[in-house]
């Protein structure tokens, strides 16, 4: 019995003598919700963190007070020679341990992106406690300003960016995907591009919001340009990521526009090398729902439906071509990842062009086969401007 007690107390002490070395109470954490990296002079960078302020967060405590309005986060920044340096300085000014586990958005300023982001990524990917599924953005101006802007619907900026991205309007790239792009054969990358837009709320007040509809294009790890909103959409069709967009087209011979929401999109690239000519066949199949129709067309008529579908197909093809024109030919960046397709089908031929892929890329001929099928026309049978044309339902 004595031995048993001894054993029990000994093993019990083992748990406690460890000192719970790993233990951190939640109120000893400075929870970072998003981070921004800006370029400074002399190759210095500025790391800004959006830190959650638990006291300001009304929550359940009876203190109540500042509901909404005053932010529940604080943006704090320090300059350093690299991320690690800046971070250690940041930790120096904070009384709590910086906790990366919930930092789901990282914003690089355009200046940083142009100098190359691979060194910063090295830091981010090396830390075990930084989420690889965090979203990465490039901002037009100072990245810190993105964090500082007041959010309206969401409680803080990180959350707002996250939700906006998940909605599928712009591109969505996680840290892991970015890493994969950078080390893959495409030798280029694309990241969502943030712009701050302002809108007047009243005479004095201005209302700011981040617009994520553009794309920053990278060759290797350096940003070389950006795509406009329209071209971004073309890229999204290519990458099979389109979600919340509306395609509009006017069928030939009639006035007005038909707008369609894609319900499901399927896109596929088929590479071929015929007589030394590199070609890609791009098949995009879209099922859509009509959301607005300002033409007099009646979609019960199969011929008018077909003409609308044809017009929409053309519209999709144009978008895709426009964005390819910009990226493939002007920027020579393989953001659509043709490289992987060729490598998979023609590994031998690929090896020969591997070293000058950007040049070869612009020679690749692209054929677009866009197909649009309209599955539903919504609740209206006839166009709303068709007055008493047929039976009313």
């Amino acid at each position: 019995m004595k031995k048993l007690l001894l054993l029990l107390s000994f093993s019990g002490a083992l748990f406690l003598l460890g000192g719970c070395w790993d233990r951190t109470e939640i109120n000893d954490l400075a929870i970072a919700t998003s981070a921004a990296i800006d370029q400074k002079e002399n190759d210095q960078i500025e790391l800004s963190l959006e830190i959650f302020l638990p006291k300001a967060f009304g929550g359940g405590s009876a203190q109540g007070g500042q509901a909404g309005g005053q932010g529940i986060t604080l943006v704090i920044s320090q300059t350093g020679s690299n991320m690690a340096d800046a971070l250690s300085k940041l930790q120096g000014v904070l009384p709590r341990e910086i906790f990366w586990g919930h930092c789901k958005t990282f914003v690089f300023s355009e200046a940083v992106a142009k100098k190359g982001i691979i060194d910063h990524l090295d830091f981010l990917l090396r830390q075990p406690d930084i989420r690889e599924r965090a979203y990465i953005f490039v901002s037009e101006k100072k990245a810190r300003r993105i964090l500082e802007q007041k959010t309206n619907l969401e409680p803080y900026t990180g959350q707002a960016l996250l939700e906006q991205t998940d909605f599928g309007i712009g591109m969505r790239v996680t840290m892991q995907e970015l890493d994969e792009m950078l080390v893959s054969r495409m030798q280029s990358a694309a990241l969502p591009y943030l712009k701050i837009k302002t809108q007047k709320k009243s005479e004095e007040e201005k209302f700011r919001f981040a617009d994520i509809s553009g794309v920053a294009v990278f060759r290797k790890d350096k940003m070389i340009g950006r795509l406009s909103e329209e071209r971004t959409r073309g890229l999204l069709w290519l990458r099979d990521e389109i979600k919340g967009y509306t395609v509009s087209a006017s069928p030939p011979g009639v006035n007005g526009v038909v707008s369609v929401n894609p319900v499901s999109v399927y896109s596929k690239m088929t590479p071929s090398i015929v007589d030394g000519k590199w070609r890609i066949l791009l098949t995009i199949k879209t099922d859509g729902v009509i959301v607005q129709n300002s033409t007099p067309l009646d979609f019960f008529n199969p011929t008018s439906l077909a003409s609308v579908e044809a017009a929409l197909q053309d519209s999709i093809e144009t978008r895709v071509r426009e964005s390819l024109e910009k990226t493939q030919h002007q920027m020579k960046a393989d953001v659509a990842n043709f490289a992987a397709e060729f490598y998979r089908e023609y590994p031998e031929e690929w090896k020969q062009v591997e070293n000058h892929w950007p040049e070869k890329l612009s020679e690749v001929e692209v054929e677009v086969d866009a197909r649009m099928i309209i599955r539903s026309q919504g609740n209206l049978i006839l166009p709303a401007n068709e007055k008493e044309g047929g039976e009313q339902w």
Partner: protein
Amino acid sequence: MIRNVSKLLKHTKGQKSKKEEINQAASKPQDPLYPNFNDNVEALRSIYKDCSDVIFRSFSLFGKTRAIVIYMEGLSDVQSLEEYVFTPLTKESTDPPSSLSDFLVHQLPVAKVTKIHLLADCIESISTGNPVLLCEGQSSAFSLGLAKSENRSIEEPMAESSIKGPRQGFIESLQVNISLLRKIIKTPAFKMRSLKIGTHTQTTVTLAYIEGLADPTLIEEAQNRLNGIDIDGVLESEYIEELIEDNPYSPFPQILSTERPDVVCANLLEGRIAILVDGTPFTLIAPVSFASLLQSQEDFYQRSIISTMIRWMRFFFLGVALLFPALYVAVTTFHQEMLPTALLLSIASSRENVPFPAIVEVLIMEIAFEALREAGIRLPRQIGSAVSIVGALVIGQASVEAGLVSAPMVIVVALTGVASFMMPRYITGISIRMLRFPLIILGGTLGLLGVVMGFIAIVIHLCTLRSFGEPYLAPVAPLQTKELKDFLWRSPLWMMNRRPHLTGDYNEHRQSSHLSPNPKAGGEAKNRQE
């Protein structure tokens, strides 16, 4: 190591009991009654020296023979004694019956008159409340069946109330309890063996089973374990339970105790045995599995789909009751990245002013909760409710408002408390509640790793447990896929055609297999009859 210790204990216990047996034999009057009336009375008088409640009432039988009635005040029906014994026997009669013994046994208007020949039997008869009649010139005594006991009326069981189903509960009288069982199971195959346990209390303990359903080896084993008990007194069935269970060190009950006759009968019908103890409404049932501790009698009194849903809820809340506080502590102090961001932020803001680490916070709250529960049970009912109101206010509201405890912690503790009361058997709930504390400490020191380690240890322990030799985790380990129909869900009654494996193996057939009600069944049944 534990095993060695227990062996050692058993050894010493065995030696002791032998000694006691010797002592007992010396003090117990096993001798037959003396032929002389006076000697007998003297012997009894000396045995009952200083027992003020034993009445020695001498009178003369038909005005001629000396006689004495010995009974215990309060245990015997004095009114009947006067009316049916003294009145006819003290009549001065001219012609006394030729054979006094025959007269007493056959003509006295008392339901049960037995002739006894041993002094020990006299003592037993007196102490159970049956007056003993000694007459001059008779070598034997007569035990008159005039015992009277004050019983509580049969009420709804306090610890196991139900909405649907019989509302009778056992009471403290063994005879009444047996009659309640006999009212349900009328077959003569329902057998009972009684024995007396307790050197001083001489408590009647009855082993009940249905012949042909219960495995004879199981009955024998139970009988052996009961025979092995040597204790001074049995006040409650727990005394028996602790002395006959398989693993005395386990926090889990290996014998089910219930105060519902219907539960006992259901178990008897599955080939189990019941042990009834005089003086307590709680009856023991063995062997049981962990699964049956998670079942309530009401599972079988309502529609199977509803019972299934309730069982799943029970499984879920079993996990909550055991793990929730430990997981909360582990996640909030070690693995903050596992919480959804919004949840983390609201926990963070509510923990802002709390002075204690999460593990201390949860221990304070859990211990306070246990204290409240205990206080509420022990106190008289009127004060009990006051305690719970004060406790709810202090624990729930004031401590949060004072910033001593965070609001999410109160929710965790409250939910855990409710979950532990979800267990249909009170004893299961207690062992789960107890095991929560080591898990909390493991969670607070080693994080999720500790919780998982603790949980695995519990599961391993459960796997090694046996109840009267039957595996405790059956039908899950060892896996009996056919038995899962009464564990993972509750199949309709017409599907449970066989008795559960292990306890019901001796006689598997429970019912015929065509019981599923359907439109055809009526016709088929007719055909079969024809």
